């Protein structure tokens, strides 16, 4: 099965019943598959006039209670930024798939990249936090899409599946389980103001059509949902909560794989470069070479770095100029070496072997 198809299958298995978007290479197969399958399970597929409307329709669908998603790539992702902020501010659960291609601008439509990793974290204006997952196989395109829906409903945030063209377009063996875990939205108790958050910092969700009257606005709002955009303390409390509800749970959300924890030279990867590192470790079994692979990139799980207490260097192969390497640098005192490879090609095993030799 193709990675993009596996993503759509994961969404369907997770109960996604709305897709709104605009097709763009290399993500189009996600939309195609959803267009073919959603009507058969009572869902809705809408091809909107552009990506701005695509994400807007997803936000609307989510407020009716539906699990809703869109899929895009770089140029469409840029168009979505404003409404991503709206989804953050209105605490709307939704899933955005970005099958990353070469940028800036229209760049390389058919080639792989991982250069939107900072955009997904910081691309909309204002302070906020989101969750981003990064699959490294067709199997994970399925699994992490399911996780994305559960995390979105649990934390009431946009969750990003930040795949790359290689994983999106490649076909490989996949095993689809009979059922997948499902975490339901916490329901707002009747009579509670809709944006009142408890200690968990996440308000319950009003049920559409069950008699709740809710005002949903991108303006700074009080717990009733009404605009109140001039109170410094209200704004500060709201924004701090929006960030803290995700960041304070980052070690719980964390999802990573550790290989050879006693290693001195440690690769850190997410997405398709992980496959090259796995090949290197397979061809040259050596406990002195470690591998930390993130399946969740944001919120950044910095404690994962402590799993390698003997590490002398972190080598970070990415299909960009060093976006996550920069984040790793903030959390460690040992050298962090970005290994950029972009233009569409994937790091070869020989290139990464050479990088290890340089640190021996």
């Amino acid at each position: 099965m193709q990675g993009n198809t596996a993503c759509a299958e994961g969404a369907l298995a997770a109960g996604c019943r709305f897709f709104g978007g605009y097709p763009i290479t290399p993500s189009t197969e996600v939309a195609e598959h959803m267009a073919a399958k959603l009507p058969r399970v009572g869902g809705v597929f809408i091809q909107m006039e552009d990506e701005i409307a695509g994400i807007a329709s997803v936000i609307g669908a989510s407020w009716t209670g539906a699990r809703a998603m869109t899929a895009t790539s770089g140029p469409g992702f840029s168009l979505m930024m404003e409404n991503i902020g709206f989804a953050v501010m209105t605490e709307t659960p939704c899933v955005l798939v970005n099958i990353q291609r070469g940028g800036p601008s229209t760049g390389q439509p058919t080639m792989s990249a991982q250069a939107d990793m900072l955009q997904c974290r910081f691309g909309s204006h204002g302070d906020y936090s989101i969750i981003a997952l990064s699959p490294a196989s067709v199997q994970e395109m399925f699994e992490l899409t399911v996780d994305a829906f559960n995390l979105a409903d649990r934390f009431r945030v946009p969750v990003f599946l930040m795949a790359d063209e290689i994983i999106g377009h490649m076909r490989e063996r996949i095993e689809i389980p009979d059922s997948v875990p499902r975490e339901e939205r916490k329901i707002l108790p009747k009579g509670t103001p809709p944006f009142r958050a408890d200690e968990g910092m996440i308000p319950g969700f009003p049920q559409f059509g069950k008699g709740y009257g809710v005002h949903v606005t991108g303006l700074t709002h009080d717990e009733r949902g009404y605009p109140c955009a001039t109170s410094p303390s209200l704004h500060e409390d709201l924004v701090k909560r929006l960030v803290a509800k995700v960041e304070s749970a980052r070690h719980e959300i964390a999802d990573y794989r550790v290989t050879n924890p006693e290693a001195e030279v440690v690769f850190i990867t997410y997405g398709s470069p992980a496959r090259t590192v796995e090949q290197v470790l397979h061809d040259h079994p050596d406990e002195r070479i470690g591998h930390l692979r993130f399946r969740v990139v944001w919120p950044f799980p910095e404690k994962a770095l402590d799993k390698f207490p003997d590490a002398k260097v972190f080598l970070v192969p990415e299909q960009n100029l060093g976006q996550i390497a920069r984040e790793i640098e903030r959390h460690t005192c040992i050298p962090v070496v970005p290994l950029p490879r972009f233009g569409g090609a994937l790091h070869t095993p020989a290139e990464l072997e050479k990088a290890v030799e340089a640190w021996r």
Partner: protein
Amino acid sequence: MRHEVRFSGFGGQGIILSAVILGRAAVMYDGNYAVQTQVYGPEARGGASMSAVIIDDEPILYPKVTDPDIFVIMSQEGYEKYGVHAKENAMMVLDSSLVHSRPACRYIEIPATREAKQTLGRDIVANIIMLGALVKVTRVVREEAIEKAILDSVPKGTESLNLKAMKLGFELAEKGKIQ
């Protein structure tokens, strides 16, 4: 044992579909692992098209083809772009009706496009003739496996045409000489 198979031709010949069918045969009907990838430009139709399959009996880590041991070449441009550097012990299946060059490695000439037109009346199935020939020459998947995978993948109503093409590929490979 890892095999890396590279298909090349021009957009519209079914170069990507050929790779998908081969990967499907390996995974679904031979119980092996396979990864299929592709390179294509926005100009796809008419331009050089390339796709690849890795087949292995253990899980495949690095997903890209680095040094193919099997080539299926269906256009001169495809040969020049993706076939000309084939390593010496590689095996190349050439559509001799469209490719004029000959490689330094072992190869077999299969006039697939001509035969598809003359014998079957439809040049669209040339890629299936090539797939049949590939399987006969290299045994990279079983004949029963490729047959089932072809039937899974082709449009309804074209099954018998495609099976004829596959069998014609088997025959041409048996008659052909490995050079």
